[in-house]
Structures are given as C-alpha cells and as structure tokens.
C-alpha cells in the first residue's frame, strides 16, 4: 500500500508541471505605502499606529523610558507592576529610579495574565502601524498576549517601511541555513473582535491597550 504522501503527490504531478530554472515566477510588487523612509516613515507609522488604537509617546532619551512607563500607568490608574522582556535594551534601563514600580521576573501564565508587559521590538512597520516582535531567549511570545497592557519600546532606527523589511530580517537566518525565530508576530494595536452583531469591541483575547514609546536611534 502506498503512503498518503505518495498518492497525493501522484495525483498532483498528473495535474501540474515541474518547476525548472526557466519557469517564470511572478515578480514581487510592493505598494508605495510600504516603502516610506526617514521622516515620512515616522509620520506614517504614528498615524497608522494611532488608527489601530495604539497610543504613541516620543522621548528624547531612552533613559526616560521608566519614567514614561510610570506616567502611563499612573495616568490610567493601573497597578505599578510590570513584567519586562530580558532584552538588554530593556533590562539596561534605569528602572531603580522609579521607586513606585515593581519589576517581576516570573512570567508564569497566571502571573502575567492581566498585568503590564514592557518589551522591545524587532521593527515598527510604517505600512500598517504594527509592531513586529520575534521570539527568542530574551523575548517570550506570551509577553505580547497575556497582559492587559503591552508597552513597546521602539528605537527610531527600528522603523521600517513594510512587511518586506521584516522578510529581510527572516532571510538573514535562512540564507545561512539557520532556523528563524519560532514566532514572528506583527501586533497591530489592542486585540479586538467584531463577532457579535459586527460591532467592534476591544480586548477580545490579547491586550486591551498597546502603548508605543519611540526613542532615538542608538549610536
């Protein structure tokens, strides 16, 4: 008895043509909205992120991030407990100066549920206003999903035009035969649903609020 794979492939081969070096492939097409750079990229990102119901703050110095986190939590009367990713850009910030903030290291699902996370990101995408994050040793995917509030710190040099810029990042792995991160997530604002009477309701499964803190480029 032939295997399922063999049988399926036999039928597919009958109805298809082999791919050769000469086979013409559709050329990529990237819309202009995904190709902004520089100042226009920043303006567009802020506009699109806001349209996705993110809040955006711009700081002059990355050292002011802890202060901004405190301000944001106070303004919304949220508990001063935060769960940070272990990315060096986040752990190296002057958290100790914020005496009211408590940093938690335990990201067990019951702990993180309903809390506030503070993370970095891989990229901020001007095309859509979404933040791209990649899983890894210093970033657990759940940080972007289990908390009620997700605060994302983004350096201006992490602003990119569109999806293709993130594909380039993934290709850095694949071209060297390395395995790309387990998860690449584009987070476009707070979670939402329109499943009851097509009415938009925020906070379906993931965070109810996403706050972006833009900081200057390094170096």
């Amino acid at each position: 008895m032939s295997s399922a794979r063999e049988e399926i492939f036999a039928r597919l081969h009958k109805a298809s043509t082999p791919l050769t070096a000469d086979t013409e492939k559709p050329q990529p097409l990237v819309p202009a909205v995904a190709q902004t750079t520089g100042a226009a990229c920043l303006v567009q990102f802020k506009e699109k992120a806001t349209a996705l119901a993110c809040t955006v703050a711009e700081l002059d110095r990355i050292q002011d991030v802890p202060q901004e986190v405190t301000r944001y939590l106070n303004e919304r009367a949220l508990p001063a407990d935060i769960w940070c990713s272990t990315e060096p850009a986040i752990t190296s910030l002057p958290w100790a100066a914020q005496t009211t903030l408590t940093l938690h290291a335990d990201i067990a699902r019951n702990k993180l549920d309903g809390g506030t996370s503070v993370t970095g990101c891989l990229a901020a995408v001007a095309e859509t206003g979404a933040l791209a994050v990649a899983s890894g040793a210093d970033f657990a995917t759940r940080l972007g999903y289990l908390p009620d509030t997700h605060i994302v710190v983004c350096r201006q040099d992490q602003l990119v035009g569109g999806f293709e810029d993130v594909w380039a990042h993934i290709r850095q792995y694949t071209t060297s035969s390395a395995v790309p991160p387990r998860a690449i997530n584009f987070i476009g604002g707070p979670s939402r649903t329109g499943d009851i009477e097509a009415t938009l309701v925020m906070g379906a499964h993931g965070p109810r609020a996403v706050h972006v803190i833009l900081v200057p480029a390094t170096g």
Partner: protein
Amino acid sequence: MQITSDQFHEKSAEALQDESLAGALFVLGKMFPLMRETVAGQLPEFEALRDRARDIRNHALDHLPDYLDAFEKKVIANGGRVHWARTGAEANRIVAKLCKEADARQVIKSKSMVTEELELNDHLEAEGLTVTETDLGEYIIQLRKEKPFHIVGPALHLSAGQVSDTFYEAHQEHGRSEKVEDKAKLVEEARIVLRERFKNADVGITGANFLVAETGQIALVTNEGNADLTATLPKRHIVVTGIEKVVPTLDDLGVLLRLLPRSATGQETSNYVSLYTGPRQDGDGDGPGSFDIVLVDNGRSNMLDSPVKEMLRCIRCGACLNSCPIYGAVGGQAYGSVYSGPMGSVWTPALTSVSQAGNLPNASTFCGKCEEVCPVRIPLPKLMRHWREKEFEQHLSPTTARWGLGVWTWLARHPRSYRLFVRLGLIGMNVMAPAPSQKGRWIAKLPFIASGWTESRNLSAPSGGSFLTQYKQAQKAALEKTGHPSKTEGASK
C-alpha cells in the same frame, strides 16, 4: 464533509421569514462591501496587487508538488513534522493520534475552516478530548452546535440577545450567573472563560492562512490574538490545513497579506499577523515542545485536475459572500455546507458531489459581483455554470427546468415558431393584466409553472410589442426621416 444542501429551498424559505436575520444580513451586505471599497480606494496598487495575487496563486498551483515538497523539507529542517492526509477521516485520525501521544485531555483551537470541513471537533470529542474553539464567533456556534454562518464571521447571524442566552446557559458552571446583553460585557465574559481554557490546554490546534515554501513557516491572521495564544501556550501545536495553501516566497505572502484583510473586513491590516516556524527553540521563553502540520487533500488534488481548478486560488476572505445578493437574502445556514455563498457554491460540489450539492451553484443570479470583488479574481460565475452543466448532463436538474430548457432550445432554433410564441404570449399577458392604474399595469397571477413568479410579486405587463417589432418600427422611422436605415438609438452603443 456532511452537507444538507439538498434542503436549500426549504431552509432559504425559512431564512426569508426571519426578521432578525434580515437585519444582520442587511448590515453585513452594506457595511463590509463599503469598508472594502473604501480601503481598496486608498491603495492605488490594489487592482495591480489583485492581478499579482492571481498570478502567484496560479503559479503555486501549477507547480504544487514542487512547492509542497520544498515546504515540507523546510518544516523538517526547522524541527517540525509534516503529515499527509488523503481524506478528512485520515486527517482526523492523525490529529487524534498526535493528541493521544501527548496524553492530552484539553484541546484549544483557533478558527479553521478546514477543521470545520473535516468535522474534527466531533471526532476528537468522540475520542474523549475536550475541544474549545477560541475565536469568539466559532466559540458561540460551538456552544450552539451550529455550522458557521459565514467563513469569516461564523456567528454574525445571531443577535446579542441570542448570544446572551447561549452564554447564560453555558457559563453557569463557571460561576457566571448574571445575564448580560451588552456586547462589550459578552466579549469580556467569553474572554474570562476562554483565558482559563488557554492556560490549561495541552494541545493547541490552528489552521494556516498560508504556507511559505521559502521558509517552511505558516502564516496566521486574526484580530483577536487567539491564534497566537493557541500557538504559544500549550505543549503541542498542531496545524491543520489544505494542501493548496502554499505560496512560494515571503514576498508572495506580502502581496496576499495586503489583499486579505482589505477584502475580508475592510481593514488595512488584521490586528495580528504571525509567522510560526516550528517548536520552541533552545533558550526560548515559551512555545510548544512540538510542531506538527497536517496537510489535507480531501478532494483538492482532484480539483487541481478539473475545470474548477481556479477555485483553489481562494484565500477565504469572504468578499464574495458579502457582495452576493443570494447570500445577502438567505444567509449561510441555508447552504447546508460550512462553505457558503459563491465560493461555497463551487467548493461544496467539488468536495462532495453535484448530486448532493447541485442546489448551490443554482443559487446565483450570475450578477458577477462575486468575481468583481474576488482578490484573486476567481471567475466564480463561470465555475458555478460548470456545475450547472454537470448537473444537466447527469440528468439531475428538476424535470420542469429540463422541460423548459428543451422548449426554449427548440423555439430558439425555429424563428417563425418563436415569433408566434412571443405574439401569443403578449396577447395572453395583456388579457391577464387589468386596466392601467397609477402604478402602471401589473399582472397579479400567472398560470401553470409561471405561477411561482407571481407568488410573492407582480409582473409588469408588456407594453409596446416585442423587441423585434419595436426594432422594425424604429428602422422604418429612421428610413422615413433620413432616407437610410440608420442604427437606431439604444442599438448604437
């Protein structure tokens, strides 16, 4: 796939009497097309992207075994496993076995039309597993034991009141004793219940919107974020999807990601767009210990070798449902298949048979709106016509329809008889119509097989003779006026 499409007439008659459904369909049919049009208008490259998307999907299908093979190799290199299923039953057995291997008891799922097609939940439950859908709409219809009403909005036919009743009954065991009708509160209630399920689940099952051959990754698109929790929290992640979902490269994925949300819900982007590569990696803070992809054929390889091949381009956006006047009148439940609307009218006979699902390709006015909005330009009316032809060839269409077509064919070939028939018909219809009122002349009741037409509406009485008579008169008038028989007005375009 179990279908009840043979009851389309009865179910659509019921649906037409349902006033709350009419309200839901009105909103759906107005709001989504309008939002789609708005965001499409804001993207200058929208039409060019549709051409490209069509080409990408065609290219992938033309070389499907090569791209599936490349995808499989990458998945394995990334630490995942690939399983092939010829039929729905085989896919269900594979998924059940994977769950058993993990000693799983609790399974959570994010929305997947393929698993609806396979009736995977029933199978897993029969194996003793508890399965919870986490997309809000899917969760609601799971509690109500219904089929999806719409491929994107499975519960859009229900009012908040109906959802409230369903939750009130289902959530008492979770200590929810208050009956709420406010939509935000209903969403919150589901969030609280489902969050606990997420935390305790052993296995997470998702579909895949796309498979990327270049990298071996799967792409998932949601607004709720439930697919990401499903793919991240449990010990195992199982992906169940159709073999046709593969695209060659990330760049191709980019093209489709720009069309899918715009076509589906009129959004520039879905709130969560994710790529999953494999199981948890060394040092990762979280993620499942295993990553299995079940690739389902279930009739697709036969479709590839058939006149409805183009249907395999479908990216499940639902735009054709939203724009269809038939779907907009009767809704998804009447179709008796998890795939409804124009796309369902082509898929369903392909996955079952034209004898079981022949009603569906007939449930179309051929207005062409579905093809007009399809992001991958599937010629849906042409493909529905193919099934109608099959139905006729196999002598499955109703006797009256066959008889009527026979008469028409004969008349069309015999012009003299045709003209006589038209003349007699006009006389007959004029006899049936009463004297003109302020609202014009209307026939209230037609005899014999034509009576169906006047059951729920009047027919406008004929005026001014047949087309041929009017054409001849116009020609004659033109000759008298200009000296030569010019093209008449109306016929000049």
